[in-house]
């Protein structure tokens, strides 16, 4: 049977959610017609492989000290060999800090078509169709890739439910890592965790969250005053932190924090998926945006089309 290959992702001894999300997607795409294999590279993966058992048909494990922490050179060398040898119908990789780093070079080195940041996949008689989003989530594209015997697809994180258990009989293949032909050019040094912060936005019941639509730093106090009035905490989207209008510790999203407050009030935030990933599980989401087509209205429960600087002072009067 033809194969779908999933590149497992882990960091600091923990499998990352994207691995289980890709397994859900692999299962859905396979529809029983493909074997699902997972490849797990690491320094010492004992303790990780058990967590994948039942969720795929085959688990290919390669341990080597050079693979302990993700390293572009080593992963490229090993995975390009594996893909060339096995020719899976499709290889899935996360559109994450690891997969975004590895995917493009892996595709060039193996010479296979690569679609990055996919939200849905379909194998139509071996030919790959994918769905992606462009223009910050305001447009969807459906791509049919040219016929090829093997494809690479980057999978958007947080887009499907992660697989939590499975009843497949997983065959474990412990494979020796091939010799790396090239030296290790790029060297991993260390992880740096976020610095101590003034407030923990993840602990708040109500978040008043500002995006680029707030316009300028001078407008931040208007949101702050409103937040104070209702006993909420101020958070933000990435550009607001990038610009230094609020500290990085206030940023919601994939590269910031994941929050689940009772109420999340998004002010002038377009709703890019990296932002949505950090807030879509809030109990109630209220969004204010001048653009009626802003993607934030897809995940919001209540929407207001309007200028945040006009709405906020009015709203504050109601408390």
């Amino acid at each position: 049977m033809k194969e779908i290959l999933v590149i497992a992702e882990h960091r600091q001894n923990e499998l990352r959610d994207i691995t289980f999300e890709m397994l859900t997607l692999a299962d859905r795409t396979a529809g029983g017609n493909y074997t699902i294999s997972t490849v797990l590279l690491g320094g010492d993966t004992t303790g990780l492989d058990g967590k994948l058992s039942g969720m795929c048909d085959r688990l290919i494990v390669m341990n080597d000290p050079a693979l302990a922490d993700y390293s572009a050179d080593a992963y490229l060398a090993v995975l390009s060999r594996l893909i060339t040898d096995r020719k899976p119908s499709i290889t899935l990789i996360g559109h994450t800090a690891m997969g975004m780093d590895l995917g493009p070079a892996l595709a060039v080195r193996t010479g296979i078509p690569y679609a990055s940041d996919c939200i849905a996949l379909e194998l139509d008689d071996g030919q790959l169709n994918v769905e992606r989003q462009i223009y910050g989530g305001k447009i969807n594209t459906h791509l049919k890739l040219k016929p090829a015997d093997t494809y690479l697809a980057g999978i958007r994180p947080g887009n499907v439910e992660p697989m939590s258990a499975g009843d497949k009989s997983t065959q474990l293949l412990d494979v020796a890592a091939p010799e790396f032909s090239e030296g290790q050019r790029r060297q991993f040094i260390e992880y740096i965790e976020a610095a101590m912060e003034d407030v923990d936005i993840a602990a708040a019941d109500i978040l008043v969250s500002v995006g680029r639509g707030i316009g300028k730093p001078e407008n931040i106090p208007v949101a702050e005053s409103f937040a104070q009035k209702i006993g909420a905490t101020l958070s933000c989207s990435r550009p607001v932190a990038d610009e230094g209008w609020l500290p990085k510790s206030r940023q919601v999203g994939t590269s910031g924090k994941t929050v689940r407050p009772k109420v999340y009030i998004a002010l002038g935030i377009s709703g890019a998926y990296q932002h949505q990933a950090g807030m879509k599980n809030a109990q109630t989401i209220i969004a204010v945006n001048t653009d009626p087509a802003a993607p934030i209205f897809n995940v919001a429960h209540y929407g207001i089309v309007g200028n945040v600087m006009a709405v906020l002072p009015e709203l504050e009067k109601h408390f």
Partner: protein
Amino acid sequence: MNIVVCVKQVPEVTDAELTISSDGSRILADDLEMDINEWDNYAVETAVRLKEAHGGTVTAVTMGDEDSEDVLRQALAMGADEAILIDDEDFEGSDAVGIARGLHAAIKDRPFDLLLAGVQSADNGWGQVGLVLAELLQRPYASLVVDVQVDGDRLTVQRELESNTLERVSLPLPAVLTIQSGANTPRYVSILGIRRVRNIDIEETDADDLGLDEDQIGVKSSSVQELKLSLPAMGEGAEMLTGSVEEICDQTARIIREKGGLQ
């Protein structure tokens, strides 16, 4: 340190109403404002700061139509020394590899120590071109970079990972980096600043000059066979609050009180 930086012109879409052509192949972008891709602005700033600290030159390169000259002028006004415009219809329909092939051909014979690109383009969002270039150049690379330090003939960079975590890696020069937003504070460019660089010559080139034929670029080389655009399904969507500002705020305040457990 000689640096090449890839910049791209993209439409400003956050506030715009987007319409799709009747055959579903493209958005009708004629009335959209164009700007430098957000991530590329950070890449240019990174390049100029490295030049200021270590000497050398900065060359900005773009592939696009003649209007893309604007982003090159922007890069020049920020401190780039030279600019290259690859303008050729034959590149239309290229995938990330086709675009990277054009950029590669335009810069491969220039001696450079560092090549910078943005993490992703705001329109396509492939997140690929910079790293495809790295592989075509056979150079080491790092993506999602928020900090760059030069240590002799090596770089130490910080890569942004998920959940407020960073990673420090070291790599030898020449290298390729893709720059993440927030890496610095890009300098502001005034109209006067742009005017000051209006006389700098921009090198123009096309597929022929670059020795690329149609099998390597454009629709023919692209991995995409068919493409169809659509507006995203609204899903459940939000309940839109309507009425006067007064009425909307009244409703909103009630929702916040009830759902937020306020008195």
